[in-house]
């Protein structure tokens, strides 16, 4: 399956016939591909397509059952990540592993096999960050850094090892468009020096504009290998999902009466790392979708908590259809028709150890009559879980499956479905498609549009600007706890939005 690989450059990494099985799942089957020197190579696939398993094998976290891997001319079969790093493989994970209380330099030293003395390390960090255009001060504490800056710490930690192959797992999911551009500029410089880069993402546009080559995985197999620049996003998505993607249907909606009014909503930061909400105002009409953009950590979680009822606010600040809900907790708000789906699926929107049946009881007790006078109707809960599972195409053995056993996309479909099928008057969702594959994301977005068409108001809080442009009628940005005035989405460009967000830390520094 290495057809068309750039033959003029040597392959830094090759894999042939890689296979890996878990109980009941064939995670990888006969996977072969090669990454050439200086190439940015995309690994594209839905969640559960086997991308993570594949890169974990390259990084020594998992061992393949079958197949061969080569790094340069030497066989590559790392026993653990340390062996992989020694061989020249580095990886930047989607979730950062940094100690908040320590400085940048201390964190980098912790991740190295033989860290040099502090002062020398600081000099090298400054040097590398300058060379690759990644502005970073070695003596700052992690807790003060934005998500983009934290990612730079991870990248610089990798670069200090002079890797031959750098693996990046969905690196732009936490970045603003400008920060993402900065990242790609860095990757280009790195590639120009001969480093091979394996880039995992499901954002088709960025793969099309920045990757030299794409290997597409579906159900653990390589289904195609192509030059992504020669294909449209729709074609790539079709390869990934295996059938022509559904078009999102935005029709049939009209703005009705005002359903939700938020007035002068302020709250102090709940924790040291939290963000205070500062005088948030918004209005929402029936049938309307309001998009709220912004980089996570700018008050998104706090805004959701203030709307869901997990946090209370001053009288008159949250009004649903003329009724003041600001002093009420989550349950009475749900009964009134204000529902929410938090960002964190496992541990916030769902209890990981509970079955899906039990997880319906978390929010649907009152509106679906699953709890009457305190008594749980287990059979009813099971029926409701089954109806959510079938209506939202949640692919699992049954409603008795524990939430933690579900893939991100499947659990998100369940969580959104659980709220949508309660027919809310207003639904607030935070990062509805974060880390979700294209197929599930499309289903989630369509369900939000359908809900609005039936006359509910929907608030979508998201970092994914394409998603916000696709869904919302009006757009506003949440930045450091302040919500901008909304503007109509029609005619908005990504650049304009990026400026509205304004939360791109270190941008000016980078442009020097």
């Amino acid at each position, binding site marked *: 399956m290495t057809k068309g690989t750039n033959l003029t450059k040597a392959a830094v990494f090759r894999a042939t016939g890689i296979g890996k099985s878990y109980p009941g799942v064939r995670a990888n089957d006969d996977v072969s591909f090669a990454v050439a020197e200086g190439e940015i190579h995309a690994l594209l696939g839905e969640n559960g397509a086997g991308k993570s398993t594949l890169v974990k094998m390259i990084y020594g976290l998992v061992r393949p059952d079958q197949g061969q891997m080569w790094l340069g001319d030497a066989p590559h079969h790392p*026993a*653990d990540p340390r*062996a992989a790093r020694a061989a020249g493989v580095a990886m930047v994970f989607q979730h950062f592993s940094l100690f908040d209380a320590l400085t940048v330099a201390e964190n980098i030293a912790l991740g190295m096999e033989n860290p040099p003395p502090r002062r020398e390390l600081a000099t090298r960090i400054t040097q590398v960050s300058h060379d690759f255009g990644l502005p970073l001060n070695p003596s700052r504490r992690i807790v003060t850094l934005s998500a983009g800056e934290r990612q730079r710490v991870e990248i610089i930690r990798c670069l200090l090892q002079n890797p031959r192959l750098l693996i990046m797992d969905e690196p732009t999911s936490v970045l603003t468009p400008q920060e993402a551009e900065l990242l790609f500029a860095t990757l280009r410089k790195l590639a120009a020096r001969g480093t091979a880069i394996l880039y995992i993402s499901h954002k088709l546009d960025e793969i099309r504009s920045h990757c030299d080559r794409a290997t597409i995985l579906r159900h653990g197999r390589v289904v195609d290998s192509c030059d992504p620049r020669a294909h449209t996003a729709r074609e790539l998505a079709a390869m990934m999902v295996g059938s022509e993607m559904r078009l999102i249907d935005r029709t049939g909606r009209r703005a009705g009466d005002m359903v939700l009014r938020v007035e002068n909503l302020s709250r102090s930061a709940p924790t040291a790392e939290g963000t205070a909400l500062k005088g948030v105002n918004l209005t929402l009409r029936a049938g309307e979708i309001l998009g709220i953009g912004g980089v996570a950590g700018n008050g998104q979680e706090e805004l959701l908590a203030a709307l*869901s*009822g*997990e946090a209370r606010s001053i009288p008159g600040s949250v009004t649903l259809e003329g009724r003041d809900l600001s002093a009420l*907790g*989550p*349950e009475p708000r*749900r009964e009134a028709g204000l529902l*929410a789906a*938090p960002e*964190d699926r496992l*541990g*916030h*929107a*769902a*209890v*990981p*150890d*509970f079955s899906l049946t*039990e997880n319906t*009881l*978390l*929010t649907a*007790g009152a509106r679906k009559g699953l*709890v009457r006078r*305190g*008594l*749980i109707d287990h059979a009813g809960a099971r029926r409701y879980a089954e109806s959510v599972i079938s209506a939202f195409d949640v692919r699992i053995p049954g409603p008795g499956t*524990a939430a*933690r*056993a579900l893939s991100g996309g499947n659990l998100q479909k369940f969580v959104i479905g659980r709220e949508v099928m309660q027919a809310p008057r207003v639904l607030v969702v935070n990062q509805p498609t974060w880390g979700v594959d294209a197929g599930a994301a499309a289903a989630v977005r369509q369900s939000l549009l359908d809900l609005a068409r039936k006359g509910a108001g929907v608030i979508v809080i998201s970092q994914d600007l394409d998603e916000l442009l696709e869904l919302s009628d009006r757009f506003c940005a949440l930045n450091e706890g302040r919500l901008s005035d909304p503007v109509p989405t029609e005619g908005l460009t990504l650049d304009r939005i990026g400026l509205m967000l304004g939360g791109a830390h270190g941008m000016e520094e980078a442009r020097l």
Partner: protein
Amino acid sequence: MIQLVPRQATSTAWQVATPVLAVLATMVAGGLLFAAMGHEPVAAIRTIFWDPLFGPAASYSRPQLLVKAAPLILIASGLAIGFRAGIWNIGAEGQYIIGGITGGAVALAAYPADGPWIFPAMVLAGMAGGWAWGMIPALLRNWFGASEILVSLMLVYVAQRVAAWMAFGPMRNPEGFGMPGSRNLQQYPAAANPELISGTGAHWGVVAAAVAVLATWFLMSRHIRGFHIRAAGTAPRAARFAGVNPATLVAFCLGLSGALAGAAGLFEVAGPAGQITDTLGTGYGFTAIIVAFLGRLHPVGILLAGLLLALTYIGGELAQLTMQLPAASVQVFQGMLLFFLLGFDLLTRFQIRRRVLA
């Protein structure tokens, strides 16, 4: 080399197997200990686990099983609910003592009146006393963020001092010739908690323990509050999202476990103990913690674990009498049980794998 690998899902088979394994390991380790002390190990184990039920003196010891198991099960049922929610009431011993005092106080105040209301009023007063003692750590946690573990534990020692004060002071039996201790409630029919069926050892506390097992099972599996308690224990943010107020939950769990411990204390004062003395607390409140964990925080498990621990109490006494084993051997035994249980608990969450050296 051996390596511990986290399991994807907790294994139900191991959930059931670990308490059994822990009991067996305790028997083996206990046997070794007794052998080292110069006793016949098999005989000692048989004396502790077999003779109380089927030995020559079983007709005396068998009723004791329910007498000892009832307070353990009653207290452990309440504790388990809090433990499920991640709220750690370590001071049931203190709530037990205070419940015995407040419930007993009703009887002493009513003496020598007669009436069917006296005993129920004592039970309610006992529960109220235990509840109030449990609410102290609850409020301190909710208001000031104080650790309920430390506060509830320290209040045990306060309760012991209160018991001593009562036994030597305000509640001392005026007809007791200056001996410490209150009137004997066993000799006050309206307030006594007698054996209900002769030869079984079953008193009202046994009935209450049975009701507690059923009621906690119902609460935890059928009622939304039980659902919220379980959710709060494993995913606190999800529980808050569902609408659980953490402060209310703390007060509910500490109050409920306190009330049940208080009831257990009253049944003991009105029944087997008979009076309020400075040695009112005999360790049931602490042993109940072992019962709760050995029973996997599940009502049925707690029922079985309560009976087993009661057996070690009785068997230990028997071994003291017949084999001259030291009194501390029971405590060592119970300690080993908790130790092995926590150790084997690893197996429910981790797998043991041979590590292949590269």
